[in-house]
């Protein structure tokens, strides 16, 4: 894991604080967007749904980044925790009429516990073996969701239909706009927590374990406890993303959580940059963008180069993955950081 390095060390240089002002400004703008647009229809409700989904995937990718990029554990099965989060939210809302927002912390805690428990045996596993165990998890999840004794809760292959909550206090927003706002707030909170975690003592221990597990152990870091806990936290993030996805997408079913979902999260992480927080945002945007437009794009590409057959989105996924590993192993965020590092000395003189 030595090739992965954090994109930007957090320091108190003035350019950095300029950057953080810009980010706060951007966030305020993003939050004001639904109010500015109102019911005028400049930006359709459908676009707001797309934006919300991007943010949701960004949270999921962030979860995987914490595990893979900052702790050096590989998971090919994070779709499983996404599914647990989504089903927790859906079952609580559908059967127990729990308030949609209350389901988020419940899904988070449940996913943390399951992730921690899965992380315990995974402690002994490294690299390829952990990838294998999680690979199996990703393949088996749809089957587990169809398990007969869970059917009274999960409704089997039919899945569960939900209804979006309406905006409260008579806010002049459509429910899609309100969802977008809520998802944005949750995401900002989750990213803020992740940033604080990484800047803390446990966060440094996490990256120390990634860089050299044995050395970290000899320095007194309880590596196994850390690894299991990070697995739990990572699952927590993905679980919250899953719960949000269930709420805004208004539907869950076993086949929405196939192996493809785990791959999509992995692709997002690799494309954005596994060891970077902004990379998670890029990854989330990429995942939703590909999901939405890959079909049309691959069709256009097939036509453009006169292929006798119709390419499928997965071919693009696969090619993207392999090419990125060659040209930009740090993902887009890592690539930008490298570019920045090249330009900076000339500026500073």
């Amino acid at each position, binding site marked *: 894991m030595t090739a992965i390095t954090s994109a930007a060390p957090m320091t108190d240089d003035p350019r950095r604080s300029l950057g953080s002002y810009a980010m706060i400004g951007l966030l305020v703008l993003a939050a004001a967007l639904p109010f500015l647009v109102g019911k005028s229809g400049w930006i359709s409700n459908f676009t707001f749904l797309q934006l919300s989904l991007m943010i949701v995937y960004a949270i999921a990718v962030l979860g995987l980044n914490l595990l893979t990029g900052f702790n050096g554990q590989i998971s090919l099965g994070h779709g499983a925790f996404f599914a647990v989060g989504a089903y927790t939210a859906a079952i609580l809302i559908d059967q127990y009429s729990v308030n949609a927002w209350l389901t988020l912390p419940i899904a988070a805690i449940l996913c943390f516990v399951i992730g921690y428990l899965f992380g315990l045996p995974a402690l002994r596993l490294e690299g390829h073996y952990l990838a294998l165990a999680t690979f199996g998890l990703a393949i088996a999840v749809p*089957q587990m969701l169809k398990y007969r004794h869970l059917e009274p809760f999960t409704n089997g292959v039919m899945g569960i239909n939900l209804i979006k909550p309406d905006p409260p206090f008579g806010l002049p927003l459509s429910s899609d706009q309100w969802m977008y706002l809520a998802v944005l707030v949750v995401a900002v909170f989750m990213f803020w927590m992740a940033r604080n975690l990484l800047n803390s003592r446990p966060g440094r221990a996490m990256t120390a374990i990634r860089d050299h597990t044995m050395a970290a152990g000899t320095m007194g870091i309880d590596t196994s406890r850390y690894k299991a806990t990070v697995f739990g936290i990572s699952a927590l993030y993905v679980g919250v993303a899953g719960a949000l996805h269930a709420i805004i997408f208004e539907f869950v079913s076993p086949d929405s959580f196939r192996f493809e979902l785990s791959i999509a999260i992995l692709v997002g992480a690799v494309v954005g940059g596994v060891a970077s927080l902004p990379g998670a945002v890029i990854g989330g945007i990429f995942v939703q963008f590909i999901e939405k437009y890959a079909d049309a794009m691959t069709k256009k590409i097939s036509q453009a180069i006169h292929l006798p057959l119709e390419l499928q989105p997965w071919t693009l996924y696969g090619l993207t993955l392999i090419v990125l590993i060659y040209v930009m192993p740090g993902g887009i965020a890592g690539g930008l950081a490298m570019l920045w590092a090249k330009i900076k000395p000339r500026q500073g003189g």
Partner: protein
Amino acid sequence: MEQLIQQIASGLASGAIYALLALALVMIFTATDHLNFAQGEMAMFSTYVCWQLIQLGVPFWPALGLTIVFSFILGLSIERIILRPLHGSPILSIVVVFIGLLAIFHSLAGSIWSHTIKTFPSPFPNVSFAGSGYIGAHQIGMIAVSLIMLFALFAFFRFTPLGLAMRAAAQNPVSARLVGVRVDWMLALGWGLAASIGAVAGAMVAPVVYLEPNMMASILLYGFAGALVGGISSPGGAVFGGFLVGVLENLVAYFGNLTEKAFGIYIVGNGEKLTVALIIVIAILTLKPAGLFGRTTVKRV
């Protein structure tokens, strides 16, 4: 009782396929320390090639032979072109490349041959014979072909100079290079062989599970389970593990069925096959990572 024997027999038949796939996985693992997550999809792709040849009018066995050659070249070129430059990269990069390959083969098969389920012809005559109440002709054929493959491979590695060179390259690359073995090419040959074995496994199992792009996902997981049970660094162990896992899979379903009949409680059935495989994988990895016959790896600090 009769049912039990039947279950064991068909377990051995699917175990033969798992054994082949496990052997392919072990072949790549011993040479490069990589778990090839794309092995199943490569086998699936080869099976489609075989199907296409048969559709074009080639008889079964020549078609399978051509497919084996095609898969060999495919595996060899994947190693030489895609994986060779990544030699010494972090594990994450390798795993991601395998997942990329998996996605590419999966989707290419879908776009070339569509996702509709196809029947695949069985090369074995559908005759009845003594004991055929327990096991079908195709299942016997599956076991026979797998065993022939296994012995051929054993003979290749044991008695030919090339096999010896490949073993040397896998066991001790540095010394092998010193005595003049072209280690790089030996690894690529290993990949080619693994891909060919996968192709045979695919063509043997396709008449049973039908041909479609998803056909190999669960079989690959069982192949992994088999390889782990036997010890991922031991070819003989992997074969044994494959058969064992095949029988175990059927017995779990069988006893699940029995308990449901006896107590009226459903615990496991055919619907939980993948979960059973997952539990085997995790249990072996945590309790006895070296498997039954594997060597324990010692890490040098």
